[in-house]
């Protein structure tokens, strides 16, 4: 990810993008270039515009001003927040993955060739033999991977993920992160939003700190610094080193205050 445009490798270029749902803009004057092979995490506090930026990059929202330019033949996949999924909707894993190929005329049923492709994608993501299972009857990590499989089944060159580890335990979160790293190593460009600085963001090669506008962008070493984090989160942050990784901790005046006290002898 670079801020300047490289015509050969740029997949999506956001140029001074401002998006508003009502009067007040949600994101302002965003300049961002996503290049082939990038693995980018967009971080920021709640309400900072992470999901809105993802949707603007996807083309799901038209900017009030500025422009988003996508390579004309770019194939994209989108993995929504799991909280947004209707888990009572009657789809099996195979149906969920198969619906992604919806362009042009296609037979309603999944062809033999598509079945082979779906099985291959499910195998790749560790969902072997779960094709006939209803999506509700899966673990949290498996559910996340089903929607990743749906994105991959379209042949997406770039996959957007909105809070992909939300609600997952630590082990499953690591599994998802490793899976994304493997996909990225295979050439898939990954752009995700996350509020999880230590669990996800510090592991990514590139981070965009967002609070209505881009506060900082670059490697964790460049971006995870007190000044950028304070401007992003509106609160002082301290950076610690642990096992070669950066760990961000709250350094604000109320950071160590725990008002809950056990009543002795109660």
């Amino acid at each position, binding site marked *: 990810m670079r801020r300047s445009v490289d015509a050969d490798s740029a997949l999506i270029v956001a140029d001074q993008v401002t998006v508003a749902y009502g009067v007040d803009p949600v994101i302002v004057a965003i300049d961002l270039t996503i290049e082939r092979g990038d693995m980018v995490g967009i971080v920021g506090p709640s309400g900072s515009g992470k999901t809105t930026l993802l*949707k603007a990059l*996807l*083309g*799901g929202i038209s900017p009030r001003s500025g422009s988003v330019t996508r390579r004309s033949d770019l194939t*994209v*996949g*989108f993995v*929504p927040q799991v909280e*947004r*999924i*209707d888990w009572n*909707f*009657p*789809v*099996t894993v195979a*149906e*969920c993955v*198969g*619906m*992604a*190929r*919806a*362009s042009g*005329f*296609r*037979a*309603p*049923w999944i062809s033999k060739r598509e079945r082979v492709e779906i099985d291959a994608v499910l195998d790749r993501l560790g969902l072997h*033999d*779960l094709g*006939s*299972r*209803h999506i*509700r*009857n899966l673990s949290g990590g498996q559910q996340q991977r089903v929607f990743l499989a749906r*994105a991959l089944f*379209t042949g*997406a060159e770039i996959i*957007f993920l909105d809070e992909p580890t939300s609600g997952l335990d630590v082990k499953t979160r690591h599994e998802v992160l490793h899976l994304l790293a493997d996909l990225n190593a295979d050439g898939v460009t990954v752009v995700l939003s996350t509020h999880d600085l230590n669990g996800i963001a510090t592991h990514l090669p590139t981070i965009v700190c967002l609070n209505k506008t881009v506060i900082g962008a670059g490697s964790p070493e460049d971006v995870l610094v007190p000044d950028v984090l304070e401007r992003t989160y509106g609160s002082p942050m301290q950076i610690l080193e642990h096992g070669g990784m950066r760990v961000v901790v709250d350094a604000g005046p109320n950071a160590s205050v725990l008002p809950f006290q056990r009543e002795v002898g109660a």
Partner: protein
Amino acid sequence: MSWSELTAPYAFEFFRNGVYVATMAGALCGLVGCYVVLRNMSYIGHGLSHAIFGGYAAAGLIGVNLFLGAGIWGVVTALAIGGIVRRRPIGSDAAIGVVTTASFALGIALVARYGSPGRSADSLLFGNVLGVNTSDVWLVVGVSLAAFIFIVCAYRPLLFTTFDEEVAQATGVRTTWVDIALMIVLAATVLATMNVMGVTLIAATLVVPAVVARMLTDSFSAMLVIATAVGAVSGFVGMNLSYHHDLPSGSTIVLVGTVFFVVAYLGGGRFRSRAGTVAHAH
């Protein structure tokens, strides 16, 4: 009851037409109703049928073909509901409530002021399956074929848009056109089956088969097939029962569907858990 007694009413053309129409209308409503139920728009069948009543009255007043007027009115109403939901922070239930009841109120006012324009308002409100003629049969055949072809051709965009419209749009599906096309099919379905079921009962024929199917399966494609079959069987059995027991046909069809609902409610969970076990073991 002997076989000859069971088949006796088939000697009458009006009954044969009624059975044809009730069976096909049941299948059609079952098929289209799956999308209605899964989009949480169960009330739309009820609302649209009322709205079309308004169009029927208005068409009579201005002197255009009743069917054409009511049809255009229904499609415009359906599109208006879809448009309001997309453009304003209003839930589909509220938009349906406002648009369709306003249209129905207009129809009532027009009929009260200027009188019923043609077919009796009672038959439109409560249905008259035994009064259907050959043109009604062909109308239901035509709409059923069109709906079936549409759902086959647009199966995946329809499924994707119904399941997750935002992601479908983001990945290239023209969701607005999919919504518009579905609303047109829905309006045509309500219009074609209104003479059979009546304004007051049409919502049940749209919703009940789909709900029954949902309780029996966790697969979307299976739900479409089961809902279509339940709708068709309800129509066929309901028509025959209504003749032999001298009951109103529309009500009997709905009651047969309700029996399916009760059976599915009592046994559906067991069926689906068995299917899940098979999938797990597999």
